[in-house]
């Protein structure tokens, strides 16, 4: 039997480090005038509209009694002001190298083989494929998430720190594939690849995305995950930093690494939902579904255990996927009991 991946403590730091995304309101034609967006709590009288038990549904009296209850709720909301028609989202993205070094590792076998494998990948591929896909996701403004829906125009301004601004018309870039070709895009992808390969010490990109969503329209910051929130009466709490509505950095990171078109079923029109985020099990949160299951031997751990010990994977796409998970980072150790 071939050597076993013996690392029980194994972790990789993320190599794409996004900041929180801050939301501002402005106008499409005059962007110099911009204001941070604040959250506004509002209380509404809701309706009872959930699916009721058959016993209630069939008894008109009981049904009336049920739906007459005032369903009072307090929620956070965020919207542009009445004189603003454009949402500005700004964040920075740091790109680091050093994917050939785990941040913590205790396996001698693993340590002996993995760095060579990673360096071979860097030498052969130079991260060009991954960098291009990340760049497309920066250009297509996927990180606007729901704010992207229904926006009339979207413009993305990227500054890679050398004084020159790259401007992208986000609607020109598809969310379904990564076939775009564009001078500015190549420039951005080249820089990201350089940083991932370690040719640059690090790269700091600042991104400003402008979305024309219409005057006084509602915009969507991240919602906070609060456990054990029993007593408070607010049922939806949005994220803000120093009073400015914001998107969580994790959410921006997820959008940028939505580059996985190599999962089983991607080409199948019935299943395929376009690119999914790079995750060890190909998990898509809002579908509650994992596309890369260990049963198909398509999950990260099945591939990585072979790859890290120098075994060839069946195609380049699988290598891209494995390296993309390492760029994402995470704790990949296994139980020492087996």
């Amino acid at each position, binding site marked *: 039997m071939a050597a076993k991946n013996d690392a029980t403590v194994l972790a990789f730091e993320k190599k794409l480090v996004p900041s929180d995304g801050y939301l501002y309101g402005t106008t499409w034609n005059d962007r110099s005038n911009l204001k941070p967006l604040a959250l506004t709590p509002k209380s509404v009288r809701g309706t009872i509209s959930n699916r009721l038990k058959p016993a209630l549904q069939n008894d008109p009296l009981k049904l009336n009694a049920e739906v007459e209850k005032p369903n009072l709720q307090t929620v956070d909301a965020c919207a542009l002001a009445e004189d603003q028609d454009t949402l500005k989202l700004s964040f920075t993205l740091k790109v680091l190298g050093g994917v050939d070094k785990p941040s913590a590792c205790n396996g001698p076998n693993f340590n002996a083989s993995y760095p060579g494998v990673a360096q071979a990948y860097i030498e052969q591929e130079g991260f060009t494929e991954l960098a291009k896909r990340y760049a497309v996701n920066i250009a297509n403004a996927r990180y606007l998430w729901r704010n992207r829906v229904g926006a009339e125009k979207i413009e993305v301004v990227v500054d890679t720190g050398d004084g020159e601004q790259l401007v992208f018309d986000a609607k020109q870039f598809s969310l379904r594939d990564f076939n775009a070709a564009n001078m500015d895009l190549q420039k951005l992808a080249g820089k990201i690849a350089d940083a991932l390969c370690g040719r640059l010490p690090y790269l700091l990109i600042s991104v400003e995305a402008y979305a024309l969503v219409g005057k006084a329209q509602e915009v969507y910051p991240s919602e906070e995950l609060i456990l054990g929130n029993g007593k*408070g009466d607010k049922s939806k709490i949005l994220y803000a930093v120093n009073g400015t509505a914001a998107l969580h950095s994790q959410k921006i990171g997820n959008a940028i690494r939505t580059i996985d078109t190599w999962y089983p079923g991607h080409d199948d029109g019935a299943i395929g939902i376009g690119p999914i985020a790079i995750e060890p099990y190909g998990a898509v949160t809002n579908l509650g579904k994992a596309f890369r299951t260990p049963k198909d031997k398509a999950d990260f751990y099945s591939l990585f255990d072979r790859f890290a010990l120098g075994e060839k994977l069946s195609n380049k796409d699988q290598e891209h996927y494995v390296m993309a998970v390492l760029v994402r980072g995470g704790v990949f150790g296994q139980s020492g009991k087996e």
Partner: protein
Amino acid sequence: MTRRLLLIPHLQIHNANAMSSPYTIGFPAMTAWLGGVHALQRHLRQQGLTDIELTGAAISCHRFDLQTHKGQGDFVHSIVGTANPLDKDGGRPAFVEEARCHLEVSLLIELQGFDTDERERLEATLNQQLCRMKWAGGDVLAVKPVEIHTVDEDDDHSVRKLLNRLMLGYVLVERRELMVQVMRDEGRDALDALLDFLKLMHRSEQDENGKVTWSSQRKAPGWLVPIAVGFQGISELGQAANQRDLGTPHRFAESVVTLGEFKMPYRITNLDDVLWQYHADTERNLYLCRTLTAANLIGD
């Protein structure tokens, strides 16, 4: 005596670990900061600056944003959580409550073995490395260029000028001596002594007209906080299964928690009050971070 100090101004950190100790959340533990400084020293040595020693560090906090939420009418704060990725069936794994914070700090680090000819190289290496590091488990979003200062300890003015660079903020100083005093004088055990200083006492007084006035106070003035400052070894040195580093002996340990105080830098007069150092007391199996001033006060 002149001392050389390295200032890392306005380090902005995102999603840092907010465990101050195993029991409390708040400002990241002192071990996290000294660990970061040690990582920095190891990097400098790998880069060929082999004589450099970073012997102590002070930390000043400019902005602190703990990720908790307290709604109207809530009695306690709840931790704002993050979700783990879905498992292999697409299901949601258990939530793990982890306290996080965003913060902005300045670090003042004592430099030894520093050759002025290497100044430029040192500064360039540091500026580059700082952006690539993690601090207290959080990501560095931005940092201003580092500065190297020389101060004459006997010249109050030069010390003051440097400490002013830590404004506006609060520096963490050690207040272990308060606990030691209460344990010695009042015979309390360590946990009681710690709690004595943290609890708020509400007292009522009734004057001759029957009017009741309430007052609230703590045992000692100042912004006292519990902090983790190191480890107490609880097993022999040896090998354990699956230990992280096979080349270094392993030992089980538990955290040492003591009192710290956040002070405005203008109230500091002596650099030793704020510079924390590693100290290993191998006879008592203690691995501590401490300030020289506190160590001298207690006499260990």
